[in-house]
């Protein structure tokens, strides 16, 4: 009944046998022990489970691991490179874009995606880009400022 899947996660190849019904988020968390990706609603509404799948931000709580077979996944653990924070991570730290931190990994992935698509977003663009991610702590203002920081940083601007 189990099926073998092959994925590249954060630059590392994995081959595992999983039940076809196993959700991608549980594969990442329980099998690969990458627990930075969180589960907040199991219905794709809160965005805490957002990961990058072949360059697209997806909700890993409503996708089966077998559907990701052959794909390349980046989770929050793969965002910092060689000890350097991703500009979005840096923005969240600099601008106090997180409090409890539970939504943060998904927010960072979604924010990175929106900056991939639009390097110089307006406040409205940012809000639209984060539509799929809920935060209950920050009131979003500092998250929006964090994304603005990251956009400037990525463009080589000073803060």
């Amino acid at each position, binding site marked *: 009944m189990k099926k073998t899947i092959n994925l590249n996660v954060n630059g590392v190849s994995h081959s595992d046998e999983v*039940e076809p*019904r*196993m959700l991608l988020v549980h594969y990442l*968390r*329980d099998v690969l*022990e*990458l*627990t*930075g*990706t*969180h*589960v*907040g*609603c*199991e*219905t794709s*509404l*809160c965005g*805490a489970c957002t990961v990058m799948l072949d360059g697209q931000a997806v909700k890993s709580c409503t996708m089966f691991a077998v559907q990701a077979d052959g794909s390349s996944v980046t*989770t*929050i*653990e793969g*965002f*910092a490179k060689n000890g350097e*924070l991703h500009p979005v*991570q840096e923005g*969240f*730290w*600099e601008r*106090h874009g*997180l*409090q*409890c*931190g*539970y*939504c*943060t*990994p998904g927010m*960072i992935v979604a924010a990175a995606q929106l900056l991939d698509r639009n390097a110089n977003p307006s*406040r*409205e663009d*940012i*809000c*639209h880009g*984060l*539509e799929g*991610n*809920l*935060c*209950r*702590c*920050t*009131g*979003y*203002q*500092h*998250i*929006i400022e964090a994304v603005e920081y990251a956009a400037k940083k990525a463009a080589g601007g000073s803060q």
Partner: protein
Amino acid sequence: MANKYVGQRVKRTEDPRLIKGLAHYVDDIGLPGTLHVAFVRSMYAHAKITGIDTSVALATPGVVAIYTGADIGDKIGPVPCAGALPDLKVPDHRVLAKDKVYFMGHPIVAVVATDRYVARDACEQIIVDYDELPVVTDVEAAAAGGPVIHDGFGDNIAYRLTSGEGDIDAAFSAADRTVKQRVLHQRLAPIAMEPRGVLARYFPGEEELTLWSSTQIPHLMRTQVALMIGIPENKLRVITPEVGGGFGSKLNVYAEEALLGWISMQLGKPVKWIETRRENIQATIHGRGQIGDVEIGFKNDGTITGLRYSVFADLGAYHQLLTPAIPTLTGLMLSGAYKIPAIQMNITACFTNKMATDAYRGAGRPEATYIVERALDLVALDLGIDPTEVRRKNFPASNEFPFHTATGLDYDSGDYEGALDKAQQIAGYAKLREDQKKAREEGRLIGIGVSTYVEICALGPSQAMPAGGWESATVRIEPTGKVTVLTGASPHGQGQETSFAQIAADELGVNINDVTVIHGDTGVVQYGIGTFGSRATAVGGTAVFVAIQKLKEKADKIAAHMLQADATRLSFEGGKYSLQKTAAAAATGVSEPVVPVGQAPAGALPEPDVEGRSSVSIQEIALAAHIAKDLPPDTEPGLSATYFFEPKNFTFPFGTHIAVVEVDRETGDIEFLRYVAVDDCGRVINPLLVDGQVHGGIVQSIGQALFEEVVYNEDGQLVTGTLMDYAVPRASHVPNFELDRTETPTPVNPLGVKGVGEAGTIGATPAIVGAVIDALAPFGVKHLDMPIKPENIWRVIKGH
């Protein structure tokens, strides 16, 4: 003491692990052989259980055990309620339903299996037979009679209470005019982004149980769960790893927490339960849930003579930890920021077939502020004066503090007019009113709402708290010069790992990176009360501050001994005791650890050598105190101090929020044009964190004012059971906030800190609702109940 850190926008020390995805919430902790628990919960709001068939589920491969209410019997004590009120009816609240279910989501059966998928599958195989019973969902109907929820109580009224001071009848007789309004505070779901969760591990040899729980109150939970499951309190350790938000919903002791601990003891294995979001909305406490009438008497010049609030409080089916106490907090704050000679609150608190209500961010105080601020708006409307005018008319002056209210409180300090002035100035209030007038002439619907709130924080004096209102701290300088702060507060996003480190670093004159703040582990922190009621910094931070002063008293003596000087001649600056205040010591700013990591000699620690020196660092003193070869006579070795801070009063932060909205005539949609908030939370340790608290609170207010509502239908079915139906604000719903502050330190604690965690949810709701209602003034609207959805507005505009 020179402040290098306190008052600065210091970036949080807790953030790196969180932004890298390397932090650990309960579900991130994996123990070998962990079993998973899932619950069968009632699909009915009120029913008799006539049978439970678990046979098929038990035979499912991977299912390890199944427990029903009958299996548990009296082996686990009732779910605790700490709200002691005269003649309070307390239903027997067991961890699993026995003969009856009382609300949708009531846990009936716990299934333990080798993995979470199997556990949930097995739940589907369990057949529960129900005989439905009449359902009571409306709180006023519950009070009026009809079906009784808990047999033996005779009715559904949990308690009645009248509170307040002053001659209320005389106050209304003295009034020239009165206004009265029926007001709803709808039920809300707290929706912490991390649902609840518990991991329990029993060590049979040691007879010790460890509970990792997503809670705001690890120590209170340890005491309560120990009593519930009959394990000695000192054999139970509660650890709160990262907690993904609480907002009061985790200020509780839930059935699942005790049950998981008990199951682990039965099976001798680690067991884990992680709440699903559906369970979270069904079976984690709700907030608010009041409906009542407010009546206010006033003179023709706007002077308030009295206020009366008669309210039905919807408690739900059972009491959780503080359920019955929440409406009484409303009664405490009914004077708002005003001089009101007589106040009366009449509470009728009722059982309904719903989940319990309890503390949700603000916990009874947002209701009070909303009532008072709505009433003041109605007075202004009645007199045809500006809402700011009626507020100014009734403020106590800043020299009238401590100010006694007719609700029995003594407000510590305040300058309400100052905050209102500043907010009006930032908003350009006069111009806003002119613009509004012009816009109305053009047919645009622009509204301005004002709230001049006061809140009660830093909970609180132990006299007023069910289980102690103090907070503890231990501050220790390790032999290597690193500073460890243990706090009984249990922050979960508020950032006290940073703000307490700021306090410690400044007071000890060390680098903030040399300070580590430890919390949320009953095995490490001796005792604590927890984080709720905007108390962590005001009460817990003060405990840290005073513990450091105690530690320094000892360090003073050791310094004098080491420098062979009179202690009174020493000055302490930049982490160094000096014979004279030397420019060098002050310039370096902070002292550095004596034993840098990686350079320490193996084995013996170096003895500080102060021969011929005129200064010694606090870290050298710590090392000397630890090595203890040459201490002043009768000095205890080691350098640490513990302090339990007992506040003598609450604190009363205040402020003014001004919201400006525009309503779309065609769709009823609401757009924020401005949002100005001037908050006064006393002295500010970290402005960055304070801004974050205010933003978050305001957005939860926006949720209450415009979107959120827990809806049960008449059968007690939860209609808003997922995040698809329960509308939490998203980024596109929030305005760009314009924040400022005034700073009126509290005399209640030496830090001058008042607390800010709930300011936003208390101050903002009336401003937002006031703005929407003001926008609809051309239609003669004086009040609309929350949540004010576009549909409600559209109906007003279209006359439906």
